[in-house]
């Protein structure tokens, strides 16, 4: 355990201090007496599980929420932060997970938005461009002032957000899960940028639930658990296991053990499947695969190689050009989603906001989405049964932050995901498609979902796993199929090396894998 009591820092040393912050939403306490100290010129990670209260805490700092109790000190002086504008006046800037940029405007236009340079009552575009270029130069964040924001990469957009905060005079920069939307390359670049900013004197709060990032980028880390500060310690000397323990409150197995599988009869059979994408271009080009009862087959590949289209086609959400899909022997090719579900498909959707949940619906209503009609009589719902069932599943799947009647929109991302997982597993499917089942989850929740999927496998379900995380693929799968450019290019086992998988996923061939001719 690498924890230590934080050194008591002098007031002058602290850029930001929070004392005893408490915030309640109705009966839910998001923060309870949270203390937090950010030193000048440090990168401070705020680590916690989904729903631990990290974002709420920082929204309070940025004036987006008002605390019920507690005080905020900037540079040792107590301040009141009633709005983002006031936060900016105190030198606090925030970069949200979802960017607040206008895609049709240029980088320079977005950067000056809200504080536009004027010349004779008109927007001074040249001035805006100059200001962007200067800032970009000064902080070493390369951006093209004239590019339209909608045309640049997500990483670039994030830079614009950071530059905008710096432009408003931010000395304290809060980043809410900044790496969630970035590729590995962009993440590395971001980390370099943050280090430069820190060395230039900016104090940075880095909200995350990823352990590796904390160790890589942060100088110190404060762990929140269920709305309370658990501890603050230096990252030097800490490791993933100790961080995970502090965050979850118990020992966490980062990689679950699994018994060898005992596959039985084929349950999901896909035969020479062809599917086109939204632009009518072939996305799935003759894929055949079989998942047997009691095994987990992972479909590994780089995003956009046809995985999602396969899942959509199986689930009846996208038309099949040719080929066949069978669930437990029953041909479901081209059937509508209800018929495919009735044939025995469970489907943990890739995107819980767009597809997996009706966010304003209560947890109970969302849990009933696939079988509300099954328990109905005379066309009427059975609300009591829906609530009872929801209470059971909330307990079983450890959904936190609300009761059966709470709308899913007020749950944290991880708990929303648990609702989706709970519904799809509770439907007792023969085939379970798990598409990015742990996207955005913290280690504790990931462990939970992984154990659950393995338990379902051992009960004899056929599971098709889609994941972009190689670690996840390796720790869960019994067999790995690698997809590239709409075709299965190889099959391998979980002990394949990163290099081997990487080579297959980028279209190279591997000696260790049995190539499947297509």
């Amino acid at each position, binding site marked *: 355990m690498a924890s230590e009591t934080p050194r008591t820092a002098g007031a002058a040393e602290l850029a930001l201090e929070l004392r005893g912050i408490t915030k309640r939403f109705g009966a839910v306490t998001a923060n309870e007496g949270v203390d937090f100290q950010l030193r000048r010129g440090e990168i401070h990670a705020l680590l916690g599980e989904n729903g631990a209260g990290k974002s709420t805490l920082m929204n309070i700092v940025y004036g987006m929420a008002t605390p019920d109790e507690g005080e905020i000190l900037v540079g040792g002086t107590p301040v009141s932060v009633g709005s983002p504008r006031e936060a900016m006046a105190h030198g606090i800037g925030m970069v949200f997970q979802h960017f607040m940029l206008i895609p049709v405007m240029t980088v320079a236009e977005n950067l000056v938005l809200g504080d536009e340079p004027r010349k004779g009552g008109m927007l001074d575009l040249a001035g805006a461009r100059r200001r962007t270029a200067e800032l970009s130069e000064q902080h070493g964040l390369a951006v093209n002032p004239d590019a339209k924001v909608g045309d640049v990469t997500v990483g670039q957009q994030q830079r614009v957000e950071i530059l905008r905060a710096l432009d408003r005079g931010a000395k304290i920069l809060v980043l809410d899960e900044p790496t969630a939307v970035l590729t590995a390359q962009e993440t590395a670049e971001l980390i370099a940028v943050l280090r430069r900013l820190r060395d230039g004197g900016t104090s940075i709060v880095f909200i995350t639930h990823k352990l590796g990032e904390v160790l890589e980028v942060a100088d110190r880390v404060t762990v929140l658990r269920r709305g309370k500060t658990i501890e603050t310690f230096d990252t030097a000397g800490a490791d993933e296991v100790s961080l995970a323990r502090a965050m979850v409150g118990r020992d966490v197995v980062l990689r679950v053990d699994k018994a060898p599988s005992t596959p039985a009869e084929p349950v999901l059979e896909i035969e020479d499947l062809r599917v086109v994408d939204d632009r009518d271009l072939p996305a799935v080009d003759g894929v055949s695969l079989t998942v047997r009862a009691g095994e987990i087959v992972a479909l590994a590949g780089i995003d956009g190689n046809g995985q999602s289209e396969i899942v959509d086609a199986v689930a009846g959400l996208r038309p099949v050009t040719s080929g066949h899909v069978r669930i437990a022997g029953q041909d479901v090719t081209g059937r509508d989603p209800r018929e495919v579900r*009735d044939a025995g498909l469970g489907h943990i959707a890739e995107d819980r906001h767009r597809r*997996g949940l009706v966010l304003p619906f209560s947890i109970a209503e969302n849990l009933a989405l696939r079988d509300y009609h099954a328990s109905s009589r005379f066309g009427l719902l059975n609300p009591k049964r829906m609530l009872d069932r929801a209470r059971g599943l909330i307990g079983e799947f450890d959904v936190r932050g609300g009761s059966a009647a709470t709308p899913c929109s007020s749950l944290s991302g991880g708990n929303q995901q648990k609702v989706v997982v709970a519904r799809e597993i509770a439907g007792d499917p023969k085939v379970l498609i798990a598409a990015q089942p742990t996207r955005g989850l913290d280690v504790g929740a990931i462990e939970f979902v992984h154990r659950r999927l393995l338990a379902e496998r051992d009960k004899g379900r056929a599971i098709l796993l889609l994941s972009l995380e190689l670690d996840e693929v390796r720790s869960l799968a019994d067999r790995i199929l690698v997809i590239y450019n709409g075709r299965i290019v190889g099959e391998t086992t979980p002990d394949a090396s990163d290099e081997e998988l990487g080579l297959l996923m980028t279209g190279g061939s591997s000696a260790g894998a049995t190539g499947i001719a297509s």
Partner: protein
Amino acid sequence: MSTAATPPTPPAAQPEGAGSTVSGRLAEAMRDGGPILPLVTVLFAFIMGGLVVLATGHDPFSTYKAIWDGTGLKWLFPWTPSADRELAAANLQQTLITTTPLILLGFAVAYAFRAGLFNIGGQGQYTVGGVLAVWVGSSFESMPGFPHIVLAILAAVVGGAVWGGIAGLLRATTGANEVITTIMLNWIAIWIAVYLFGLGGPLQSSTQPDIPVSNDVVEAARLHVFWGDPELQGLHIGIFIALAASVLFWVLLNRSTKGYEARAVGLNPEAARYGGIRVGWTYVLVMALCGAFAGLAGSLDVLGWQFRIATNDIQISQLGFFGIAVALLGRNTAVGTVLSALLFGALLTGTSVRNLDPAVFEPEMAQNLTFVIQGIVVLLITTDVLLMQLWRRIKRGRRGDAAGEPGAVAA
């Protein structure tokens, strides 16, 4: 089944829903669009209306008093002197006669809203219902009363459902926006009706060849007047049919599988489709149901007090459009829609030529006051975000003043 991942301590037991305290419940009501916002909106609209009256050189208080008297609502209060009660009763009957179709026309809009659709076609569906009801009601003279009425209402309901369903079908199959199609269907319905009852039209009155009007609904097919004088437009039993429809609306929306589907489609069509709901079919059903509500409204008016349809009535009727304001103000809920229908019914009656004392305010102008208030209500209710922001700012301003000591983050 059990896994090792049981959490160390279960989260503190939470009562059902976040609203365990009064303030919590209040906050929830605000968030869910509870009664506070509409009430504030109405209050604001009345103040603005008062300013308009003031601008015309009249006294807003005596004008509102006269409108209030015209609505007859004071009949409900036991302290109203018995000398006034007779007039108040007659006025209240008028108010409720207008409220009856407004309730149903409100539902015709509200149900669509809950499914993410905007039904502007209430007027057309109402017209179709009225036309079919007057046709059935004025034909089959030898039919006994009860089945005759049921048949006329049924025809109107089915006709309205078809008229609404067309828009739903077009949306489901071609993606045609229901706002456009329902507006077009309004005109089609109105002009078909004008043709049918116009001079020389196929359904024009057989006894009055010089007047563009329908035949009269036969005596037996008229709805029973249970309060007031049938000769002087007493209150017919249609109000009970509308109230029964309100229960139906609530049950359908909140307790039926079709209502669940409609709400899911309205909030997230992609999630609904993923969940196995047939989105297109839901659009058709929802629009047909909306049309059925509006068609029912048309039949109740025809069988309850109009008994005939004149072509100029068809062209000037605005009732279907009032349904939009009713639904918006009622927050698309059953109770809210009934209450806001009563408000608009009272306003329309209180400012009508028949009920408003011309010595206080010219009724011709007063009717416009209703439109002003309606306009402000629609404007404000659709900009609730703005109102909420104002509210929050006021609240914060107040607290900011109170928390004067430095360092307090109570603001």
